[in-house]
């Protein structure tokens, strides 16, 4: 079964060496992704979602970071064991990534056409003329108006939204099987965010690449993806299909996250309740070496067991799973 998956991450552990100590920032993380599937990874800042994305491309900054355990099987090939040469083939060709910061992610000294064309030329061995034509085609695909003129522009001449479109064009020019988008719209205006997500929706159908969307915005996940995975303090704590997840979150943390979404429909008594917030902050990775659930200190329903034993991820049916003793005990 695992052989057919596009991506299968198994027991991944990523550690960062700080002050002579290996601090894990991602622990025992496993997830799968099928061809053409879309997965949302949700979590607060510092929960390990971005570093997980980087690890898929072999880009964990090393030192101090390293993948200390586990496998990343891409079409059955373990990328953790792959050498730099092989990874360079995978990057762009099979997996590519769109980063958070469109303002600084383009090389300021080349025109955007040159940047897209260069990628096409290197990966496909196209002639310069053909690569340029391909670049213009890609700009058109990502919705840049008058692409043949715009291709001669330098990055500083474009707005943030336009730059992010160019980044998407670069990421897609080699027709990767997996596109990772790490908070692709965080740096953009709300209206531009909507445009970029519309573009993603459109491209999803056109190119058929699987997408991993990393965000802290549950609304975006609901709109964009089929499945969602919630991370907390470096672990996966819940996953499942998006619709069920939004309707009935299981882990107390995800319940909290879902209740944090402001709703426009007011309750009948017309007294809008204050927006829910989860008390406390995400524990730092140093605090995670003690036993017990990482969320227990912030959890309203924490039990004695939560502070001594780390909950295991338990399947809940319908492809859902949550790592919480409440669920395990309810099922027992």
């Amino acid at each position, binding site marked *: 079964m695992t052989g057919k998956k596009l991506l299968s991450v198994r027991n991944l552990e990523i550690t960062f060496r700080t002050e002579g100590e290996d601090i894990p920032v991602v622990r025992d993380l496993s997830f799968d992704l099928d061809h053409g599937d879309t997965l949302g990874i949700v979590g607060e800042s510092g929960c390990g979602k971005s570093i997980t994305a980087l690890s898929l491309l072999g880009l964990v900054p090393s030192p101090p970071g390293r993948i200390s355990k586990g496998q990343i099987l891409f079409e059955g090939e373990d990328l953790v064991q792959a050498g730099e*040469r092989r990874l360079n083939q*995978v*990057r*762009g060709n099979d997996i*590519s990534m769109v*980063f958070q910061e469109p303002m600084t992610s*383009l090389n*300021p*000294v080349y025109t955007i056409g040159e940047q897209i064309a260069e990628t096409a030329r290197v990966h496909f061995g196209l002639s310069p003329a053909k690569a340029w034509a391909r670049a213009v085609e890609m700009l058109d695909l990502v919705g840049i108006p008058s692409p043949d003129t715009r291709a001669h522009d*330098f990055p500083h001449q474009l707005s943030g939204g336009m730059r992010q479109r160019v980044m998407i064009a670069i990421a897609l020019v080699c027709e990767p099987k997996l596109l990772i988008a790490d908070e692709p719209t965080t740096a953009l205006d709300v209206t531009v965010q909507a445009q970029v997500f519309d573009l993603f929706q459109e491209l999803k159908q056109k190119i058929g690449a699987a997408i991993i969307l990393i965000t802290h915005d549950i609304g975006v996940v609901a709109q964009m993806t089929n499945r969602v995975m919630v991370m907390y303090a470096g672990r996966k704590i819940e996953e499942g299909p998006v619709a069920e997840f939004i309707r009935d979150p299981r882990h107390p943390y995800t319940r909290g996250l879902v209740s944090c979404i402001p709703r426009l429909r007011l309750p009948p008594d017309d007294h809008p309740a204050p927006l829910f917030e989860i008390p406390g902050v995400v524990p730092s990775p140093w605090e995670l070496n003690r036993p017990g659930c990482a969320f227990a200190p912030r959890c309203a329903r924490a039990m004695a067991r939560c502070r001594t034993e780390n909950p295991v991820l338990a399947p809940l049916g319908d492809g859902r799973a949550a790592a919480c003793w409440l669920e395990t005990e309810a099922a027992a």
Partner: protein
Amino acid sequence: MTATSTTPASAPEAVSPGRQAWRMFRQNHSALFGLAIIALIVLASVFGPYVYTVPPREMVWMPLTPPGESEYLLGTDYLGRDLLAGLINGGRVTLTVGLSAAVLTVLIGITVGALAGFFGGRVDDVLMRITEFFQVLPNLLFAMVVVMLFSPSLLNIAVAIGVVSWTSTARLTRAEFMRLREMEFVKAERSIGAGNARLIWRVILPNAAPPLIVVAALSIGTAILFEAGLSFLGLSDPNATSWGRMIGDNRPYILDSSWGVTFPGLCIFLTVLAISLVGDGLNDAFNPKLRQR
């Protein structure tokens, strides 16, 4: 600038960083003046010997003839050699040595600095220790030893100058690379499969170019001065006349013929001044803070 309208077709025209720099440079009068002097000197050195065919190394008139007292415009030196012919031919030698030494300086400096700055860690440590070793050597002394150990041919002199003067270029390149390698676009390029070689030469180096171009230009001037210094001390190719050598040769007769050292000195002064002016102009042209758009 044209009025901005909503249609992207009439957006400001695409201006490459190079063209933008040239626009700035064009407005800098002293830099243009420097460029003109350099052009003049280069033209005179390249084509002069074909136009002014007096042999530079033969006795053509009475020794120590002052300027304007014979058909030889700038007079003659202590051996009765035509000074103007010497200057024209010496310009060739001086410029060739200066330019090749500068090229060597920049090549070594950029390579060492780029590798150290890009890879960091152990590579950086080793390369920087080597750089420091060359930095603490007394430049002139080391170059003299190199030239004396091997023969004082033009090539050896250029190599000696290059070998002792690359360290500051290396440090500058390293600093630029350390700054740029952390930039998002480098990460983005890596994420679409750019290998280290591509990242160094095609992605980071063009971004580090502006300060390096300035340093490269200035290092030509430094190299010319260095060559003059070596020649003055007698370490010059016996088969080639350079400006520095002319000063050195005429030095003992300075009381009888001030022109013998003045004219070559003036040539060196003008050349290095012109290079400095151009270097300053380049510096301003590449400075984004002075760029008005």
